[in-house]
């Protein structure tokens, strides 16, 4: 026999680290032509997050969209002091389309914080961050943490064109040295990026490198990292069901100790060692 009291204890036990909570939309607006910025009003106890972690969102059911599974979304910002949780997202399919229809005051059920975020080792004083597209979302809290820890940060932001480049001001405001490259200007080629990064390495400005999402960037950074012995981390994506580590649908292969191991993006990741990651 289970008393209600005991059960409510078990729903939010003292040692819970992952929460399922209702949040409320404070705003949900286009950030530029392709991305949307959503700010949720969330209880502060769920905002004890690490940069690189994510939430699993129960996108709303409407007449037009009935997503079934939750959708993973990187934390773009978390501000316990003002109960704010931010996401930056792109409409990809029905889940994100349903998200985009949320208006101020609507509720959104979220589970998190989830996964294993970026690490900033004590001896990593000069951080290089290379990102493209919506991948920048996951890097924003990292930049903020770097500032808090007093590290020097260089951010190379890549995009199709200047007008879809995001977060540049955000990174600058956090004291980062921002370099923008775009397809439009022809500056985002692998060769040009390699040149820029090698210059920074040569100048001693790169103790570690962070990236996310792009296969092309992963290969480039792996080469540079291997050549110069610079460690690095990458945030990866994979389709998810549970988001918590139970279902094993989100595995990716990694090279480790000469063998290939499979790890769960939702649990061991989404941030992984850059050299172990495998292209796709």
């Amino acid at each position, binding site marked *: *026999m*289970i008393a*209600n009291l*005991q*059960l*409510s*204890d*078990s*729903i*939010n*036990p003292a040692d*819970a*680290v*992952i*929460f*399922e909570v209702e949040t409320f939309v404070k705003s949900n607006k286009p950030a530029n032509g392709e991305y949307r910025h959503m700010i949720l009003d969330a209880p502060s106890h769920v905002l004890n997050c690490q940069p690189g972690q994510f939430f699993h969102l*129960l996108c709303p059911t409407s007449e037009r969209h*009935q*997503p*079934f*599974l*939750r959708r993973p979304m990187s934390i773009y910002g978390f501000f316990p002091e003002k109960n704010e949780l931010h996401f930056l997202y792109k409409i990809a399919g029905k889940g994100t389309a349903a998200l985009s229809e949320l208006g101020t005051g609507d509720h959104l*059920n979220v*589970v998190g914080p989830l996964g294993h975020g970026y690490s900033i080792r004590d001896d990593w004083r000069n951080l290089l961050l290379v990102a493209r597209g919506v991948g920048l979302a996951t890097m924003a809290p990292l930049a903020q943490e770097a500032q808090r820890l007093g590290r020097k940060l260089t951010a190379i932001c890549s995009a199709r064109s200047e007008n879809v480049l995001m977060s540049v001001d955000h990174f600058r405001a956090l004291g980062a040295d921002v370099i923008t490259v775009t397809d439009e200007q022809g500056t985002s080629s692998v060769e040009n990026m390699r040149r820029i990064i090698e210059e920074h390495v040569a100048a001693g400005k790169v103790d570690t490198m962070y990236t996310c999402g792009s296969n092309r960037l992963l290969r480039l950074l792996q080469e540079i990292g291997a050549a110069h012995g610079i460690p690095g981390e990458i945030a990866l994506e*994979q*389709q*998810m*069901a*549970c*988001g*918590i*580590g*139970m*279902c*094993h*649908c*989100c*595995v*990716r292969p990694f090279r480790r100790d000469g063998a290939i191991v*499979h790890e769960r993006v939702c*649990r061991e990741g989404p941030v992984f060692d850059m050299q172990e990651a495998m292209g796709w």
Partner: protein
Amino acid sequence: MVDLTTRLGTLTLKNPVMPASGTFSDDLAGVFDLGCLGAHVTKTVTREIRGGNPTPRVCEVRGSMLNSIGIPSKGIDHFITEVIPFYQRYETPLVVSISAHSGDDFARICEEISVPGVAAIEVNISCPNIEEDGKAFAMRPSSTRMVMEKVRGASDLPLWAKLTPNTGETTEVAIAAQEAGADALVVSNTLLSMAIDIHTRKPKLGSLMGGLSGPSLKPIALRMVYQCAKSVNIPVIGCGGISNVEDAIEFLIAGASAVQVGTATFINPLIMPTMIRDLEAYLIKHGISSVSELVGSVDDAAALDGVVFMEAAP
């Protein structure tokens, strides 16, 4: 106060809500106190180390999901030294799901896994019988009987046989499992399905086909639970699309003595403790003093004439 306990043979659970194999792990302890559950059921484990299927391993269909996780397994040694000890911190009975590709391999893992700390063994016979034509053991009464007899000879622990909805012989398989010594039936596993991305024309799952779980499976699993409960004397544990307390109650009324919750936990990680709380509230509200009053209480008298026809074809 109402009595939430339920009896599954020699085992008494403090409530009838437990997770379904493969949709639960110690990771969920980060969300709520796993001690509140009726039982703990682990992901199916094999003796040997296995890799599992190619990705994508899940996809969404309207209102439900398909999975083709397969049975990635770190092997039985890892399971005994790492997984079982974790659950020792709870008083909740631990049920270990096992699988193998032959009757003898089933017997072997069953014997090896019968260690202190394990309260019951769930025999996942929805896996291919490589000694015969590769169809799952649970597809036929004969192969079900063979496996269950072998595992029965290998362990004194309560043995639960987990059936498949892919068979056309649900009651025959259920009876075979009982006759071979199963202590309970888990009804059921996922249903073989498929989805194709019309733009790439590629299957949405890396292994082409996968198992349907979630709400779409519910009416099918409920029918199987009813059929099984009518044809065997051992307890039946309902499983398939159970997403809220109403679903759980429907399965109990159909004849299930307990329920397993799978996919719903992915959508709502708190659903199991919520369901336990809501079940208690439901019993109180409707003046029902115990879960056992619900079990098998379906009022099917008026409809029984139709059964023979309906079992044959809707």
